[in-house]
């Protein structure tokens, strides 16, 4: 099992989600986050005050998957979240020690939504 954590552009979320669902990957947690990924700062002006926005709004996805789904999930995000500009985000793949499904008490592979048929 792996936990795939991806930080992506807000405006790409719909495309990423659509493609993930089509590939049978349904167990997803989405968080609105702010971060800085080396992209050009946005300059904003409020009355006379000009500021450099150091943080950009991003979307963080957390997806727990079994081994056969890791590459598929990463590929989908790589393709659908990419615009080619600085600030497209990152994907982290982390090992997972244990997973429980709260409703049933199932563990590990049974507890993760993308079930291998």
């Amino acid at each position, binding site marked *: 099992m792996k936990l795939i954590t991806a930080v992506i552009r807000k405006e790409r979320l719909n*495309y990423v989600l659509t493609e993930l669902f089509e590939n049978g990957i349904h167990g997803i947690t989405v968080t609105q986050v702010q971060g800085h990924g080396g992209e050009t*700062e946005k*300059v*904003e*002006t409020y009355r006379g005050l*000009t*500021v*450099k926005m*150091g*943080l950009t709004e991003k979307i963080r996805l957390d997806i727990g998957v079994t081994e056969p789904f890791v590459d598929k999930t990463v590929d989908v995000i790589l393709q659908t979240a990419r615009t080619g500009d600085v600030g497209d985000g990152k994907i982290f793949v982390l090992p997972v020690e244990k997973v429980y499904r709260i409703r049933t008490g199932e563990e590990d592979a049974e507890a993760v939504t993308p079930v291998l048929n």
Partner: protein
Amino acid sequence: MVIGNAFAQESTLDPAATAWILVSTAFVFLMVIGLAFFYGGLVRRKNALNTMMMSFVSLGVVGLTWSLLGYSFAYDVGNWFVGGFKFAFLNHVGLTGDGVPAILDLAFQGAFAIITAALISGAVVERMRFSAFMLFIALWSLVIYGPLAHWVWGGGFLSTLGAIDFAGGTVVHINAGVAALVLALMIGKRRDYGKKAMLPHQVPFTLLGAGLLWFGWFGFNGGSAYAADGIASLALANTLLAPAATIVIWAIIDLFRVGKVTAVGLATAVIVGLVAITPAAGVVSPLAAIIIGLIATFPSYAFITWRGNSSLDDSLDVFGAHGLGGISGALLTGVFVSTAWGGEVSGSFNQFIIQLVAVGVAIVFSALGTFIIARIVGLFVPLRAEEKPEEQGLDVPMHGEEAYGDGEGALLIPISTSTKAAQVATGNLENQS
């Protein structure tokens, strides 16, 4: 609509009428703010400021074009097509007038011109370049709105023909609806349109906006009586009754179609009812107002339902609500106009045909004029935003601000270097507005 004063030689002020038009002017002004909220709630979060700014900038741009030239084009005697220059640059617009002071008539009618231009923005939100929109409404308010107001209200050929437009169903709503449709087709659909759902980001704004529009419409229709009398009262009551009917019918159709009465649907129903009663407000019976509200629901509902699944990205349904609502209202005015309720004629087949001709003329003029003006504007500024800003949302690239930033994570740029830093940091974004 009775022309207040434009041709008056001596002052015969009516204090009651003046008081009511003073208030009505402020009411119609508030409609522009209502429209900003109505439209602003319907777009995505990242375009909220841009959408609301389109209405607000109209207060400035059309406020000036109307006062300096548009009023003269509409209300100076001129010829059958357009008024002359007698009132240009506020000449001969003073404290006296027939009924109400000329300067008040200019302000009251100015609010109409402003809201008409602002209405168009709903069709092109989330993708039109802001500077192009400013230039467009400046020209459009002079070349299209001014002459059309002259034809219907200023003694031009449609008023000679006998077309009835009490408060602006043709001049304001058909005109704006058709212009919106043409501009949406010329600019093209949003890049995400049809690929992903684009939902309203703040439905309570839309309800607030619809409510403010309705509130303002009491001045829009009531004030168009140009008197504080029974006709003004009738127009105001009809402005209450027609949308009431539209709401009920819209809700019933909603119930049968999807089993739920929607908030955005109800807000839309309010607008359709208000638009439909506008040309008829002071010339039909209250019962007829209810019937007009009932009937006008169907074409707009059907069109808006179809439009949402088509490739026509009239994003906020300006044509469906204002264009079709205006056409329904204008035609039904010919049916229900009554001498017993302030009309100069009673409904007849003949009057229906006159209304039909006026509608047709307005559609053709507005469509052609909008096409030509948009082409001219396009020679100076691209009408459309580029792909990156459209994807990012237009608020930051076009206005340098965001609607819902939490104010954290911003670093001060020292004043001495701020201009230079802004140029460097915005890079390719600096030419986007």
